[in-house]
């Protein structure tokens, strides 16, 4: 009987595998790895190590992809990240996976440590495994810290300013560490390069090396069995591999959903002169941020440096402090109490930090990624002209961004003299809707706008948000520019209004419009009692002004 085609195929596959096995020993190695003996008591509680490794691999994978479209220098960095987020196909997803992956990684690594701690799996002879694990925790935090700066937005910049200040305040070594991370003259290009180099050149190989040592030690000592487990050993594959895979899949699903659904914070480009910005660290560092607030003056170094380092030292020393006999997990009440206390303390400090940090002023909050922001640089008069253009329904003929009955004014160069424009505006073409009555001043600003048409005004014409345009029209209507200045245009009788959102809230502005003397005693500004719609428009516009 001749073998069937299926058997032949299996035979051929077998020969290929044998060929590889003879030359590399790969099959034996894989089998040794998969068919490791593990105690009968192992199970779901031991999946966290595999999940942590998987999370690291996802970070490495998405990190390499991001680096393909990322420019590691300040300014360029911000633009390239925006480019990834708004233009590159699937860029938002890839960055989402990397951004939220960092948080997932922290959570998983901490859960892994908590499990090992609760079960007492660090006890002799597994002390070295625990030490390597502690180093990996620190590396994970270092990844978070260095990666935080790389988008180079306000949030990244100011968060890192605080970090470098804390590092610099360490006794004796502070100045040297500051020099090492390039923070001597404040956070700048050198700091940026050092953080980038650490994030992509130093930390990944170091993590791989330590993870290798960590896994080697786990295999050398074997998975810890429960003390009363006398049942025969089982194999790692397939049952435990199944449990690990299910856990990995659950975590991956959460990460993927976060990457798709949750907005990634992205603020305006880093502005070192923005003194009103309230920096705050990533959520997993908030508890440290809060601890700092309990120590003032000369004691600050206690909260900033001594306590955190003491905690790290204690963590490293756990296997040498707890040297008692192995016990069943249910009887390790001290360990449970410590974990509960730590969790409560962490949660309390984090909650306090969230509650006590003031909300960011509106304009500093996340810059909308889809708005190019060219309108923010226009003078109020020009922005108001965009409003007249819209109110007049000019776009019915002069379609924006596509071919309409009349020229698209954002794509051609305007060569008509301004003397031609005014009559054209007032009586555009025979068949149009009746013109909206505009004042001569308004007509003139429309003429001025189109006479000096450039890339920025074209972009604003196409994309300025309506609230800003409405606000600018009100600003023009009430001649606010007779006392105030925006983007360098207007008088300086009153304070310039750029960046007013950094230090004023909407409520303050509304109150001030209604009764200026109450908020700024001695001011010469008369009250303006706008209706609700106008008030909303003017305050939104003012709050959105750039610094």
């Amino acid at each position: 009987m001749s073998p069937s085609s299926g058997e032949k195929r299996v035979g051929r596959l077998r020969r290929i595998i044998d060929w590889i096995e003879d030359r590399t020993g790969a099959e034996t190695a894989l089998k040794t790895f998969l068919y490791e003996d593990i105690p009968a008591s192992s199970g779901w509680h031991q999946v966290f190590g595999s999940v942590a490794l998987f999370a690291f691999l996802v970070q490495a994978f998405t990190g390499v992809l991001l680096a393909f479209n990322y420019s590691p220098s300040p300014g360029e960095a911000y633009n390239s990240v925006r480019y990834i987020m708004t233009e590159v196909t699937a860029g938002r997803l890839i960055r989402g996976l990397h951004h939220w992956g960092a948080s997932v990684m922290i959570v998983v690594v901490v859960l892994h440590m908590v499990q090992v701690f609760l079960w007492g799996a660090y006890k002799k002879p597994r002390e070295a495994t625990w030490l390597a694990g502690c180093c990996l925790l620190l590396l994970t935090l270092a990844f978070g810290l260095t990666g935080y700066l790389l988008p180079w937005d306000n949030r990244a910049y100011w968060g890192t300013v605080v970090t470098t200040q804390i590092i610099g305040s360490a006794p004796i070594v502070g100045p040297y560490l500051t020099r090492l991370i390039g923070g001597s003259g404040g956070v700048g290009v050198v700091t940026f390069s050092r953080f980038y180099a650490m994030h992509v050149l130093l930390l990944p190989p170091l993590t791989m090396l330590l993870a290798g040592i960590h896994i080697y030690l786990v295999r050398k000592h074997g998975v810890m069995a429960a003390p009363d487990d006398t049942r025969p050993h089982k194999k790692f594959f397939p049952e435990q591999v199944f449990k690990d895979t299910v856990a990995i899949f659950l975590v991956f699903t959460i990460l993927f959903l976060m990457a798709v659904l949750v907005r990634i914070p992205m603020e305006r480009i880093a502005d070192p002169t923005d003194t009103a910005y309230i920096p705050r660290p990533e959520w997993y560092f908030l508890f440290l941020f809060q601890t700092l607030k309990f120590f003032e003056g000369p004691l600050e170094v206690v909260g900033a440096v001594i306590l955190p380092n003491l905690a790290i030292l204690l963590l490293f020393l756990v296997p040498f402090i707890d040297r008692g006999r192995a016990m069943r997990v249910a009887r390790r009440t001290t360990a449970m109490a410590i974990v509960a206390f730590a969790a409560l303390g962490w949660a309390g400090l984090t909650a306090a930090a969230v509650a006590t940090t003031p909300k960011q002023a509106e304009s500093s909050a996340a810059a909308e990624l889809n708005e190019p922001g060219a309108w923010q640089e226009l003078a109020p008069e020009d922005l108001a002209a965009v409003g007249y253009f819209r109110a007049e329904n000019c776009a019915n003929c002069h379609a924006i961004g596509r071919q309409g009955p009349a020229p698209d004014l954002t794509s051609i160069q305007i060569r008509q003299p301004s003397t031609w424009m005014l009559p054209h505006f007032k009586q555009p073409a025979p068949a149009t809707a009746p013109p909206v009555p505009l004042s001569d001043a308004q007509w003139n600003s429309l003429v001025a706008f189109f006479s000096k048409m450039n890339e920025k005004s074209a972009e604003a014409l196409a994309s300025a948000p309506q609230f800003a345009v409405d606000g600018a029209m009100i600003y023009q209507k009430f001649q606010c520019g007779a006392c105030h200045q925006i983007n360098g245009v207007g008088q300086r009788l009153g304070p310039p209004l750029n960046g007013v959102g950094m230090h004023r809230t909407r409520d303050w502005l509304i109150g001030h419009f209604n009764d200026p003397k109450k908020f700024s005693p001695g001011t010469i500004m008369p009250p303006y009692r706008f209706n609700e719609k106008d008030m909303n428009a003017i305050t939104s516009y003012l709050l959105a002004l750039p610094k």
Partner: protein
Amino acid sequence: MAETTTDRRTFYLSVVYGLSAIMGMALGIPALLYLFVPPRARQGNEWVDAGDVSQLRPNVPEELQFRRRRVDGWRVVSEKTSAWVVQIPKEGLVAFSPQCTHLGCAYHWDDSKKVFVCPCHTSAFSIDGKVLEGPAPRPLDRYAVKVDRGHILIGPLQKASNVA
């Protein structure tokens, strides 16, 4: 007993392979899209003014200089570029990209022989861009071009295959 163990093993294996395949695809497909699907273009077609049409004489190509914006990844660069523009009586206004279709050298108009000549490998093109001699594989590339109120407006580059 032996059968339940086999069943369970099959179940474990199919879950492990199935979930791994899903995760592989969830990471692999976005990665392929990220690497191979071109980014959304920021600027649409742009018409750039290259000068007055009255400066052209029929059948005399002129190299016209103009600035145009080019999207380069996350940057928009404004760069100086040029086009050979010629008024051909039977075809109308034509604008050629200033690079030879062979290896991208800059060619010029030889007014005595009435041909475009590339100095690199002696490709020659007729006034309407057809290859007369040399290694050039296809006619000269053309820009979209139109006249608006007496001004020459240069549009996007069109590949020679679209020109027929």
